[in-house]
């Protein structure tokens, strides 16, 4: 075999790396394009605000949108305060000892547990043991545990980016540790925590496996009365209509996928722009 000159082999390798990068980027663009192209014709006001009809083959997806909204909001309300407190503990109080290392290991592993295993756990603990039944609250609790490591990690990053000198000035004025955190550290970390929260909302809106046996219903043509009702959920609805219903009109499936994808992507973009905006305004 002819030996390539270093220059030529560099050129070829760069070309190869460029192709790999395109292979990593193009599929997601194809997915987004396909869904918008085939789905936008299904989207109208009626589709978004009416009940499904004819065994879900016609009508709208209103209850699924509301159901997802209810589950996700409950989950965030539960997980946000707990996650932020855990981040405060790790960043402001914890010493570098065995317990702290154990907490960090636990967070890493919590983040790695498969989503369907969270579903099993939620079924066993919340639905069966605590007798909450298949309900919004059972699904929300399941999702909140799943999202906890993500919230902790992002909130910790936000707290960590507040300069140490801020804390030292406050403490040197005789302010207590907690008061310093409450009035100096938290307000300065708020923007980072906020963007992390929006990203978390986006992520759990699309989760299906954890709510499969804890919150989601196949078909409920009405809105929930309380957090103890089971609901339709957008990702589960998409799964059902694309695999379980024969003769499902394709444009409704694409339309549902488009609504779900747009919800998630819009929130992700809001979070990204918020991050850029806050970074520019930062005073330090």
């Amino acid at each position, binding site marked *: 075999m002819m030996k390539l000159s270093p220059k030529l082999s560099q050129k070829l390798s760069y070309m190869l790396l460029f192709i790999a990068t395109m292979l990593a980027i193009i599929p997601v663009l194809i997915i987004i394009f396909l869904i918008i192209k085939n789905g936008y014709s299904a989207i109208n006001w009626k589709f978004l605000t009416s009940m499904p009809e004819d065994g879900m083959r016609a009508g709208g997806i209103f209850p699924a949108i509301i159901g997802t909204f209810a589950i996700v909001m409950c989950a965030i309300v539960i997980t946000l305060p707990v996650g932020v407190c855990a981040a405060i503990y790790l960043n402001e*109080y914890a010493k570098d000892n065995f317990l702290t290392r154990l907490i960090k290991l636990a967070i890493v592993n919590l983040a790695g547990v498969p989503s369907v295993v969270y579903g099993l756990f939620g079924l066993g603990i919340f639905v069966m043991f605590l007798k909450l039944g298949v309900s919004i609250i059972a699904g929300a609790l399941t999702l909140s545990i799943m999202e906890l490591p993500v919230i902790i990690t992002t909130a910790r990053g936000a707290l960590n980016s507040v300069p140490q000198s801020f804390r030292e000035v406050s403490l040197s004025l005789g302010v207590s540790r907690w008061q310093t955190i409450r009035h100096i550290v938290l307000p300065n970390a708020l923007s980072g925590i906020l963007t992390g929260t929006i990203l978390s909302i986006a992520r759990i809106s699309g989760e299906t496996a954890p709510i499969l046996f804890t919150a989601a219903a196949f078909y409920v043509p009405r809105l929930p009365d309380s957090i103890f009702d089971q609901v339709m959920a957008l990702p589960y609805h998409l799964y059902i209509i694309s695999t379980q219903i024969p003769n499902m009109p394709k444009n409704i499936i694409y339309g549902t996928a488009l609504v779900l994808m747009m919800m998630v992507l819009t929130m992700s973009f809001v979070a990204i722009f918020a991050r850029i905006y806050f970074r520019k305004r930062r005073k330090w």
Partner: protein
Amino acid sequence: MRKSLDYIIEAVIFICGILSIVFVVLIFSFLLKEGLSFFKDFSFIKFITNQFWYPNSKIPSFGILSLISGSALVTLGACLIAVPIGVMTALFISEIAPKSIRDILKSLVELMAAIPSVVIGFVGMVTVVPLVKNVFNLPTGLTAFSGSIMLALMAIPTIVTISEDAIRSVPWQYKEGALALGATKWQTLRRVVLKAAMPGIIAAIMLGIGRVIGETMAVMMITGNAAHVPHSIFDPIRTMTSTIASEMGETVRGGMHYKSLFAIGLVLFLITFLVNFIADLFLGKNKNL
């Protein structure tokens, strides 16, 4: 007054801090409890070495060898696609791409991670599945191979993001040293930067594998759900995750079938725990660089 309030708040913060440990222990012990009560009636050895998964027949058989091999095959396939693409993309973004488009490329790669897995599963069903069926002339396109392709797409963002961090954290002196000795930029990247970043890249690959093994919805929609030991990557397969997701709804609460799915959950939990633990070890190594 203020002091005791501070004290209460700090106690709450401490409790929230250790809650992660509580949850990991709780999840594990819960799966263990259900799993052990299952293994009392069905031997663990038979569970993982028998290939027949007939949970509903008259004499039920709960062998998950076919499910383990299904998960393993689809994961292996996904890795063979995702690892080279992911690592090469990370190299390109961190070292070769012009600075001005670096962030754009990175955001585009990460965009994939934002797409819900049911949406990816659905798109796989309408694009990759018929394509695989026609190109390879198969009776069905619902195969391990189709699953591997879609799972690779889902693993790539994880691999790229973490590898890129590792590559960028290689000290600049290493690069300057190699370049000063007359190496081309590519020789430097391949022989110095890649080697120095290897622990981080291995961690990235492990986390990617963890993501693929645990993935449920997309895999359930694309791989055909056939519980048998596959002969080739073009066979329909069934994974551990999709078995749990598709069968839990039809089980009797507290029955053998119900418990067997928790036993599968236990196996999955242990596998992902191990994979993440290894990833964490390598990430720790990378920091000591």
